[in-house]
């Protein structure tokens, strides 16, 4: 099984030796905006120069752990966090800013008020050196809110009484999954035509990320640059169309370019700015493409003895990384430094199943970009969980129902929203996609995601029909990309522990099982109650969880006989079955969502073997053995839910969602496969299909998979 490509930003060795780094004592440096494009490249560069770095980000878990780096939580609008971050540091590199945000108040809160708060904190804590990373947008003839507020920030920095240096980079390019250049590359790869604002003849001087970092590192220690403002421009001036053409050539892409008149684009951006907090195109973007900047590259070239990267060389290096697969797809590029998974290594339990070390949770083995399709109850739950998993960034949300997107974003989730999965995949290029739609949409959306190169998590059941489920399994096998299915109960500690106890009871004689819920007591609306969309009633929507556990514990039955009751509509509200295992043992299965007394779904499985009995429920497992076996003692053993380690790091209706999501992401990044693989889910789907065929035939014996 191959894993999704690694898209971490590269940290290439600096091409220019830094003699200053060895002549100056190491410093404690606070870097704001450490998870951004420049920040991700700068932090390791500072460490290599001998400094220690406090890397401030809204999501510190997105900062790769490394010696010399202290990830810290902070937000430019949270002045207390800035106060804490400034304690004990010698210098500050201020990268954080609000870009792509249209609301003036929000932009000011970050770029002006946040900068002032950071300056105040620096003064209070005796920080002397302050390197402010501004923008050439602050020099344009016409400025939007971004340019205006950065210009105000420059003035505040200059009057703060610190040893300050301000740098204004032009368009920064290089291998990284974030930033304007990454967006450009992503558009180039994903859109059928490339929209360019204005006539494309505006000139720019793109600068390589390594050169920007080099300048910043020098600004931290040199005294001759204090009190100066530098325009940071690359050595080659090109028109925007030419830049785009060169980039496309290096990526091996030929796409037509469509020019959008500046006035039209400005109007569109203004309107989008009113209706969206983070529009795809902002007024500042438009002005950046139509209003020339008043810049002067001479002072920086004079004061910094740097071998400035020629544009051709920088773009060729980027193209090479892409072709070698290290840079992934333009917008979600690159590479390749190894970091451990926090020392977490999965272990193989005696029965061959994989367990994570007791008390620990799985986690992605490297940073991973996840997207969620379908923003109903399950989609929201997964979005919340994913937001709390280390090394995971939620990069896109999609639902055909736009108000749901607003609702989820209104809960604070800031990932871009799209009305179709296609658009989201094209723009965000996620590594992993969580499909949380109604069942009949699972297969088509998963197919799109697989075709886009993403690993896929599909909510249970795998699909609304056996044919669609088989198609999903074939997609996974054909692409080599992981697909997992949301049979959450397998991750709850008590049910996972019970699987380890199954071997102790020996050869199975018989088993009984039930799963009940109090949910349906009258005619219902909604897709869940429409068999064409959901694939069935209580079994498809609820007790396929129980079918998974039975399959996981006991294997796949060969034959089933089932009856159902449709009390309130077109789908079954109850289903009762007997299933025959290959060895001849019979397994009873009872399920209803129309019985009182079950505000939460409740599972009970009783297994009777030649060496004893095992009973497992949501509350506990109880084992009664005639003789010790498989590490379990003779006699009665009781392990309650509360007795078992609860390794999930965030609770959304229990540990299950966190553990299943984190393990799936671990799998997608090279870790071991979870129990709920597409193959296992397909076996469950075959049993479910057989149950439905039997029930439709009034209890006739039906072969599973037959």
């Amino acid at each position, binding site marked *: 099984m191959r894993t999704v490509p690694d898209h971490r930003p590269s940290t290439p060795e600096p091409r220019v030796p830094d003699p200053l780094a060895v002549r100056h004592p190491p410093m404690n440096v606070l870097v704001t905006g450490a998870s951004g494009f420049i920040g991700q490249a700068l932090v390791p560069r500072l460490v290599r120069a001998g400094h220690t770095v406090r890397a401030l980000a*809204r*999501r510190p878990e997105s900062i790769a752990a490394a010696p010399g780096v202290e990830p810290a*939580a*902070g*937000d430019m*609008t*949270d002045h*207390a*966090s800035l106060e*804490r971050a400034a304690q004990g540091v010698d210098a500050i590199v201020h990268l954080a800013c609000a870009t792509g945000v249209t609301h003036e108040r929000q932009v000011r809160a970050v770029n002006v008020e946040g900068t002032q708060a950071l300056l105040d904190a620096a003064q209070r804590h005796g920080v002397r050196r302050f390197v402010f990373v501004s923008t050439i947008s602050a020099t344009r003839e016409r400025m939007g809110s971004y340019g205006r507020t950065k210009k105000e920030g420059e003035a505040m920095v200059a009057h703060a009484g610190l040893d300050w240096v301000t740098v204004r980079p032009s368009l920064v390019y290089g291998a990284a999954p974030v930033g304007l250049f990454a967006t450009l590359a992503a558009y180039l790869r994903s859109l059928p035509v490339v929209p360019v604002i204005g006539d494309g003849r505006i000139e720019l001087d793109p600068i390589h990320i390594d050169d920007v970092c080099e300048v910043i590192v020098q600004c931290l220690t040199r005294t001759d640059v204090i009190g100066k403002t530098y325009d940071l421009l690359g050595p080659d001036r090109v028109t925007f169309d030419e830049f785009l053409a060169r980039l496309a050539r290096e990526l091996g892409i030929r796409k037509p370019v469509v020019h959008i008149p500046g006035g039209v684009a400005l109007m569109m951006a203004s309107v989008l700015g009113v209706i969206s907090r983070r529009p795809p195109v902002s007024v500042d973007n438009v002005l950046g493409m139509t209003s020339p900047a008043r810049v002067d590259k001479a002072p920086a070239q004079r004061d910094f003895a740097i071998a400035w990267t020629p544009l051709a060389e920088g773009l060729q290096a980027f193209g090479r990384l892409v072709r070698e697969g290290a840079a992934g797809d333009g917008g979600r590029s690159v590479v390749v430094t190894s970091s451990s998974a926090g020392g977490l290594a999965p272990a193989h339990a005696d029965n061959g199943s994989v367990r994570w070390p007791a*008390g620990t949770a799985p986690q992605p083995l490297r940073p991973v970009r996840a997207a969620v399709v379908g923003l109903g*109850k399950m989609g*929201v739950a997964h*979005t*919340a*969980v994913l*937001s*709390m998993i280390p090394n995971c960034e939620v990069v896109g949300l999609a639902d055909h129902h736009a*108000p749901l997107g*607003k*609702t989820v*974003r*209104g*809960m*604070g*989730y800031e990932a871009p929203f799209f009305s179709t999965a296609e658009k989201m995949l094209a723009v965000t290029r996620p590594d992993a996609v969580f499909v949380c739609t109604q069942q009949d949409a699972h297969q088509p959306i998963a197919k799109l995601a697989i075709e886009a190169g993403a690993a896929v998590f599909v909510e249970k059941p795998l699909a609304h029909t056996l044919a669609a489920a088989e198609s999903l399994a074939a997609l996974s096998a054909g692409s080599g990309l992981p697909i997992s299915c949301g049979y959450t109960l397998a991750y709850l500690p008590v049910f996972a522990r019970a699987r380890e106890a199954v071997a102790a009871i020996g050869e199975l004689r018989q088993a009984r099982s039930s799963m009940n819920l109090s*949910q349906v007591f009258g005619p*219902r*609306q*909604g897709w*869940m109650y429409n068999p064409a969309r959901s694939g069935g009633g209580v079994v498809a929507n609820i007790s396929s969880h129980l079918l998974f556990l039975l399959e996981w514990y006991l294997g796949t039955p060969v034959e089933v006989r089932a009856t159902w009751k449709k009390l309130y509509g077109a789908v079954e509200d109850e289903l009762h079955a007997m299933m025959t295992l290959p060895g001849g043992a019979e397994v009873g299965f009872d399920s209803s969502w129309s019985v009182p*007394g*079950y*505000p*939460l779904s*409740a599972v009970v499985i009783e297994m009777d073997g030649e060496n004893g009995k095992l009973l497992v*429920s*949501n*509350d*506990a497992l109880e084992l009664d053995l005639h003789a010790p076996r498989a590490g379990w003692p003779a006699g009665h053993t009781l392990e*309650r*839910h*509360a*007795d078992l380690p*609860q390794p*999930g*790091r*965030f*609770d*959304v*209706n229990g540990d299950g969602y966190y553990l299943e999501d984190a393990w799936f992401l671990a799998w997608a990044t090279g870790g071991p496969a979870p129990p709920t693989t597409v193959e296992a889910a397909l076996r469950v789907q075959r049993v479910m299909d057989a149950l439905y065929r039997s029930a439709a035939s009034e209890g006739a014996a039906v072969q599973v998979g037959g």
Partner: protein
Amino acid sequence: MSRAPFVAPRLLLGGESLLGVSRAPRDRMLEITARFNDAETLAVTISKALAAGAEGVLASPSQPLRAALAELKQTVPIFGLLPNVPEYVRDSSDLGLVGAALKRVKRASPLTITRLGLTGLTHSLAVLKSDFSGMVPLLLELEAAALDATDLRAVVLAAPLTDLALAGRHRAFFEHYCAFVRGRFGAAGFETHNLGHLLRRFREWGVQPDLVVGPVNPRGLLMKPDPEALLAELRAARVPVLAKEVRAGGTVPLLEGARFALDHGAHGVVADLVDLEDLTAEMRALKA
């Protein structure tokens, strides 16, 4: 008329098990829901709890609670745990999120509708943007009215909503919630199943609600992100924390669980109906 300053309670009777969603073993939970479905039994129990030292009841709107409050002659301080999430989830699986909300509007009294309109007006921008900061106050208006409480001391946001906003790092929501609830209802609290995460965020953001309710017990059950991190945050917390789930799903004696929570910095304890074997004696012991 200005309200008296809020003092966080040390001991509350919890009614989460009335909804059938406690972490206690299923048999025990069924016994509790069956027993307290009878309004008189629940009323007597609440009365005994108050007499034994409980400073109020933490509960969501439910028919048994409304009936019991109607039975009681005395005023019962209510700490409203809002909304009733299990009921809302059940409705939304049928009607969708908006449909579930409309169902509540339809059964609201004219006074509640008026309050809803006023709150909607003052939150119109946030509502238009579907911002949580605007939507939750509307839901609270509906759910608080459904409590039928004459002495509503505090509104405690139910854990599923708190934790969604927490994962969304929606600081502005938490700040607005506190301001709104204090102005409209009284004290503002949050229930959470991710207590360590929430306390850390409150510390970082400088957000100070009037109380927080979350799981603390010697078993580490439901203690996120992990028991050690949670206890460290609890010791450093500047917000009064009321420990719940102190019995860790029935595996720890009530007094032992409560002692553990208080020793680690909890301000007080919520003892749920399902946690209590001998209500009067245990409540008195807890109060002591």
